[in-house]
């Protein structure tokens, strides 16, 4: 029994890392642009679709698709920010809220619909098999291990970027104190654009992995976004370790719920967890003041 549980927990951790990646993109966009990107889940699905297309279209190795997905979606993110988010960025907080919800909701709808039209509403997945590894009685699916490995490397790189590069420090500065950042000369619109690109690219990257593990359909976008919000709330805004912990917590909780209560209870776990966290500790594990 204990071995079984450990197996589930390990699986949960591996999946959780994936969630954490996408959640981090959402968190960083919100911290810098003050826009909660309802379309984030749809961006993930687009990344998944691109990966799918490359795999089935030209037979690219699913892991290699990462090299295409990241730059494409970096640019895509720049474009979205520049064309759609920039015009609303100078409004009062309440108007910005209304505008950003409407805007990203609209974008989400457009993405869902166009993907459904272009590729069909049926579920899609990449069935890419690698032999599993067995370590001391526990089975590790190799795919998940590799994905976890890539995510760890990526997270370390991102963390390094945030700490040491100018843009990274600017991003953190803006998240902590917007006016202060302006005073010291940070070009907020430009950093905002770059952040959106990074956020979109991480979501798409997570998507290209997602489609190796699960199936996707064009209408999963908004529930996914809510899931990532749950992770951010759990971990605390703007905190990279927080997103990681939150993601892993959700991954493990999902696996356990699925095992004890049945597969159809996996999805509501995120929503229930969100409500619980709001009741118990609304600023999250690593968050600062109340959200």
């Amino acid at each position, binding site marked *: 029994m204990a071995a079984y549980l450990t197996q589930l927990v390990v699986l949960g951790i591996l999946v959780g890392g994936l969630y954490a990646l996408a959640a981090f993109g959402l968190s960083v966009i919100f911290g810098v642009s003050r826009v909660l990107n309802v379309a984030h889940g749809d961006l993930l699905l687009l990344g998944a679709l691109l990966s799918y297309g490359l795999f089935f279209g030209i037979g690219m190795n699913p892991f290699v698709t990462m090299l295409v997905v990241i730059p494409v979606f970096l640019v895509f993110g720049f474009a979205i920010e520049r064309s759609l988010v920039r015009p609303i960025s100078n409004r009062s907080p309440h108007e910005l809220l209304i505008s950003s919800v*409407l805007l990203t909701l609209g974008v989400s709808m457009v993405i869902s619909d166009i993907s459904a*039209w272009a590729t069909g509403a049926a579920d899609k997945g990449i069935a890419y098999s690698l032999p599993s590894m067995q370590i001391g009685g526990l089975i590790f699916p190799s795919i998940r291990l590799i994905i976890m490995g890539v995510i760890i490397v990526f997270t370390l790189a991102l963390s390094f970027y945030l700490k040491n590069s100018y843009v990274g420090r600017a991003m953190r500065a803006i998240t902590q104190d917007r006016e202060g950042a302006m005073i010291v000369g940070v070009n907020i619109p430009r950093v905002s654009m770059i952040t959106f690109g990074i956020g979109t690219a991480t979501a798409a990257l997570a998507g290209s992995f997602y489609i190796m593990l699960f199936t996707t359909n064009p209408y999963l976008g908004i529930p996914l976004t809510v899931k990532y919000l749950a992770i951010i709330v759990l971990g605390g805004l703007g905190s990279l370790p927080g997103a990681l912990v939150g993601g892993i917590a959700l991954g493990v909780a999902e696996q356990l719920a699925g095992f004890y209560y049945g597969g159809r209870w996996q999805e*509501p776990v995120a929503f229930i967890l969100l*409500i619980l966290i*709001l009741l118990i500790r609304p600023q999250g594990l690593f968050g600062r003041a109340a*959200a």
Partner: protein
Amino acid sequence: MKRLALAAGALVLVYLAALPLVSRNTYLLASILILFIHIVLAQSYDIVGGHLGYLNLGHTTFFGLGTYVFSILIIRDHSPLVGAAAAVAAAILLALLMSYPFFRLRGAYFALATLGVILLFNRLAFNLEGLTQGTAGISLPPKDSLMQSYYLGFALTLGMLATSLAIARSRFGLALRTIREDEQVAETFGVNSYYYKAAALTLSGIFPSLMGCIFAWWQKYIHPDSTFGLEIALFPVAMAMLGGTGTIFGPLVGAVFLTGVEDLIWANVKVEYGKLTAYGVVLVLVAIVMPQGMIRTRWFRRPLRFLGLEEASV
């Protein structure tokens, strides 16, 4: 000029009230009933979304809750009145339960968290099969109820509009709008924000819940996706924002407009995809160009001012 407006309004009301008695056109009656549902959903959403400034994207949870509580009691042979009373009680309970955890969040967090609520209820409606019969949905005993539902819906809509007006003109509404502008300052003025937020949410939940009962009574069949689905969840929000969030009758304008478009255009254009894209594009355009809504634009303000009804578009 105000008398002109009131006379025109009275004419409309008489027309709507007499319609079922003189017309055999059930399609028209059904369309208007749907319009009533949309108006109530949009206006009730705006109590919290517009006046209080908290975007409750999960607003239709109250609606779905009403349909299910009502239906579950009906198929267990309770009277519709008991069903409706229970639906209202359930809505009040939900609002109070939601207040504590959710009103601690601000802005976008609140919006997305409430979206989580409707998604949660959607899944619960599917999963709790013993209670809700899951994907099979609940079928109510057949009975021709269009006329009854129409008049009930009409009455509820009038009640909703009167309530919207009352809230906007009252100290209650003033408190809500103060909280929207700056919650901390409101508190220093002695506005107990927690109480007002909870009260606003509860009030906003009662109307959709009753409308849910009427919907179930009319349709005779409910299903997790037709009641807790994501598309209808976002409809009231889109209608309220398109029409003019935070105004007295902005959501009414938005509801009439979108329902009209839905009925006149989409009923005739049969495409499998494209409708969602159109909505999405409209939302994006509204967000960038017209976030204040239709009722605050010149095209509405001038006639309203002429009619002496300018306060409707504040």
